[in-house]
């Protein structure tokens, strides 16, 4: 039955309260542990298409008569257009149309960051479109850019009002402390660099628009495009069957979709607008840089008495101020906490969500601070974290729907205990050490989300829902869930997704929400189909429904009867069983979060500043695990992105002009296969008893969260140097080592570090 409730909806840590119509989630959870299909390794159902190069990404869509757009982007961080002449471009070979500022909202005369879209052309080929851009005559009045985040705060240049959080009394907490540590941490701007660049192909048929787009949110694109173009939403069809990575940067339609749609409308031909790698690194978002001025107070036994944080998010010209203080609010039981977050508005490219935005950065600061505290207190870092364990949500006192962080810590012990042995392997200039860091994040998903399941007379099933698989393997997980409920093997379940015209509304694939939002809807749909099959079977075999179930492709009865599924479905002929399912509500009055801990082992060459990550053990609690194989891939991917964030990736901006200097993948250094450590993944795999019919949370984001702090803490363990700034480049590593040497020189031999 449909039910109207008032609920909190969370995406990427941002909560909104809204009315929502949900359906009851009537199914009991499956028992814990591996089942027939769910909880067991499954290879990707679309693996062959992807591996053979047959999967058709947005980049591969070729429509008859399709034109190619190219976008003139601002070369300046802050400027005013004084003149613009598109005529030479329009006269260039192959050019069919051009757009100037004002013709669509996305194009601007007063760009506030390098890369802001100014004008666009469409031509027969992309080469012709690019060549035409060169002919556009643009006059600029350059203006002084604001680039320094602290200066922005001082001047009150914000994207939103500063956010404040307080519980207890910070000053009192500091007064009660035996030890206080204050430190400033900095994190850099990081670029998503999905391998498939942001792009869309737009094609009109009458007043209907089809948008092929590389996106994490088919329905969000549909609604935004319909809204901006003044179309009824169902006049916009959004298609994304295969998608080449997003990591948070593809949650909306972007300027390219509107440029393509307008150029297509004017020319009457389909138009592709695909960003180049350089545009990708200018104008599609980033993980914003942060400055974190933190303090912690603790009693000598390690009990935290105070946590304070002043955070500056260098957001950029637009965007939102992520909750960099979130981990400080949520991770530890501490009565006195005060957090201020500033979202600095700058003349730099806008940020976008990037895999656990805010929490990756905030965890680096907080978890390094905890280790600096542990060193001062001479308390074991793992023990310090256990002593301050939060048993309920500290922000509003709610119980957790489940929390197994203590179990994560227990399973971390054998990895943590390698510490002495690792340190003992230090040799010459290579010093070795071990560090750990914890993680808290959201990942419970929520309603609404819908799925249909169709079973045909051949006894095969199709899951139909207009979700997207951004590369995480969610298509495969949905097949597993439906297969489990229908008693089928995975290869008898097709998943049809990626098209708003061919399935019901489905969740965004962001905020670690695909599995926890979509999974329960798919299970409910499959259960609906299963119950219809059982109804028919009961009539056919003159048995009561309650004694029948579906297993291994058969209908089985409690007394041992077993009939192949096709015996019943075969009766359908052209008829079909149609099951329908919806995601039920989140557990009322509870907080659903994900947790974990990572233990890193590093080697540091103290003469050259080289840091090698040798091993990372990742232990995470994300509720029930649907596909352990795919889950381990997600963990590895998160850690490897985390290693890039920690050691080599950094967007650089010229301090004079505000121009982005690292636009290419030689200058912006993503990790290669040679940079990857041994990664050990352990998942607790304990269903969240309160969360949906699955008890599964999301795993996309948690693994990247603790990586940088675990590495930095391992570096401190190895060398005694406090690295407080990301990336830990050679320069930063050598600086920290120098600082540590000077500190040691000043301190009398044998004195405590404090």
């Amino acid at each position, binding site marked *: 039955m449909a039910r109207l409730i008032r609920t909190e909806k969370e995406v990427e840590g941002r909560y909104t309260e809204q009315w929502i119509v949900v359906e009851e989630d009537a199914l009991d959870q499956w028992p814990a542990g591996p089942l027939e299909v769910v909880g067991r390794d499954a290879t990707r159902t679309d693996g062959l298409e992807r591996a053979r190069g047959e999967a058709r990404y947005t980049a591969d869509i*070729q429509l008859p008569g399709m034109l190619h757009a190219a976008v003139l982007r601002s070369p300046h961080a802050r400027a005013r257009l004084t003149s613009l002449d598109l005529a030479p471009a329009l006269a260039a070979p192959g050019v069919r149309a051009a757009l100037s500022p004002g013709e669509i909202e996305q194009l601007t005369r007063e760009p506030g960051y390098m890369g802001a879209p100014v004008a666009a052309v469409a031509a027969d080929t992309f080469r012709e479109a690019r060549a035409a851009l060169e002919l556009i005559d643009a006059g600029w009045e350059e203006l002084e850019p604001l680039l320094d985040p602290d200066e922005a705060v001082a001047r009150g240049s914000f994207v939103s009002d500063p956010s404040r959080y307080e519980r207890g009394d910070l000053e009192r907490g500091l007064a009660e402390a035996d030890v206080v540590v204050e430190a400033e941490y900095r994190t850099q701007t990081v670029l998503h660099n999905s391998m498939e660049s942001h792009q869309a192909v737009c094609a009109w048929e009458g007043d209907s628009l089809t948008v092929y787009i590389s996106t994490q949110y088919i329905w969000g694109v549909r609604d935004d495009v319909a809204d901006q173009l003044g179309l009824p939403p169902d006049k916009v069809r959004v298609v994304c069957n295969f998608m080449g990575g997003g990591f948070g940067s593809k949650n909306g339609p972007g300027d390219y979709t509107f440029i393509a749609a307008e150029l297509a409308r004017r020319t009457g031909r389909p138009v592709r607008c695909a960003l180049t790698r350089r545009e990708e690194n200018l104008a599609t978002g980033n993980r914003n840089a942060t400055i974190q001025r933190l303090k912690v107070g603790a009693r000598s036994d390690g009990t935290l008495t105070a946590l304070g944080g002043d955070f500056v998010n260098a957001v950029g010209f637009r965007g939102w101020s992520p909750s960099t203080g979130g981990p400080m609010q949520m991770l530890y039981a501490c009565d006195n906490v005060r957090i201020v977050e500033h979202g600095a508005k700058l003349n730099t490219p806008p940020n976008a969500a990037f895999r656990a935005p805010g929490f990756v950065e905030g965890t680096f600061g907080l978890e390094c601070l905890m280790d600096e505290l542990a060193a001062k207190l001479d308390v074991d870092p793992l023990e310090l974290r256990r002593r301050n364990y939060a048993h309920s949500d500290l922000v509003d006192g709610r119980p957790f729907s489940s929390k197994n962080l203590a179990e994560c810590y227990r399973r971390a012990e054998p990895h943590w205990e390698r510490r002495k042995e690792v340190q003992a392997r230090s040799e010459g200039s290579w010093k070795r050490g071990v560090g750990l860091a914890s993680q808290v994040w959201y990942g419970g998903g929520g309603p609404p989300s819908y799925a249909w399941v169709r079973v045909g007379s051949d006894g095969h099933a199709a899951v139909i829902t207009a979700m997207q698989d951004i590369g995480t393997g969610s298509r495969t997980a949905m097949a597993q869930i439906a297969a489990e409920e229908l008693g089928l093997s995975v290869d008898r379940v097709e998943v049809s997704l990626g098209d708003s015209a061919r399935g019901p509304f489905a969740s965004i694939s962001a905020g670690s929400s695909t599995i926890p939002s979509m999974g329960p809807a798919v299970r409910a749909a499959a259960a609906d189909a299963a119950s219809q099959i059982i109804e028919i079977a009961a009539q056919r075999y003159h048995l009561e429904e309650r004694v029948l179930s579906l297993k291994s492709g058969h209908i089985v009865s409690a007394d041992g009867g077993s009939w192949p599924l096709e015996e019943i479905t075969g009766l359908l002929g052209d008829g079909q069983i149609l099951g329908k399912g919806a995601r039920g509500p989140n557990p009322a009055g509870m907080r659903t979060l994900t947790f974990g801990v990572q233990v890193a082992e590093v080697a540091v060459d103290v003469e050259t500043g080289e840091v090698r990550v040798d091993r990372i053990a990742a232990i995470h609690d994300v509720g029930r695990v649907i596909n352990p194989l795919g889950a381990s*891939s997600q963990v590895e991917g998160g850690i490897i992105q985390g290693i890039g964030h920690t050691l080599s990736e950094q967007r650089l901006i010229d301090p004079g002009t505000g121009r982005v200097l690292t636009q290419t993948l030689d200058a912006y250094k993503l990790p290669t296969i040679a940079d990857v450590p041994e990664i050990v993944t352990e998942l607790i795999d304990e269903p969240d008893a309160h969360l949906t019919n699955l008890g599964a949370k999301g795993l996309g984001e948690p693994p990247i969260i603790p990586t940088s702090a675990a590495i930095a803490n391992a570096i401190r363990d190895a060398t005694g140097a406090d690295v407080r700034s990301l990336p830990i480049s050679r320069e930063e590593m050598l600086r920290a080592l120098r600082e540590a040497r000077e500190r040691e020189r000043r301190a009398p031999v044998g004195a405590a570090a404090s």
Partner: protein
Amino acid sequence: MPEQLKVNGGAYQVDVPVGWTLAETLRDELGLTGTKIACGEGHCGACTVQLDGVPTLACITLVHTVSGREVTTIEGLRHHPLVDAFVRADALQCGFCTPGQIVSAAALVEASPRPSRDEIRHAMAGNLCRCGAYPKIEEAIEMVSRHSASEEAS
């Protein structure tokens, strides 16, 4: 300027201007879209094809310089055991870099049927994967080399 191309064992005549890259020609003229373009300037390896068996960046190779050489794209390696190994090892996530990975890996196992871990890392370092499938890419290559080793033994 016309150009004779040998691609995956077939002969093709293309007529594109000097300056066109092999990647553009494969994708736009021959419809072989398995070769992906992700950076377009030779930095990421997504466009990797084999030229006479050697992994080559199609996005910075001018098509008029490959005459007489055999071009092998992912479409020509469709039945290579690495394809199956990549799926079994879960050595791909979004899959956009995967064709280039497999093209590079196929040349590696051809040249060195049982590569060490260091050899794999050395040979595959020019194929970036933003999803971070690297550990399983290594595993997939080892799967194939182990398989060829056991075949040799039997």
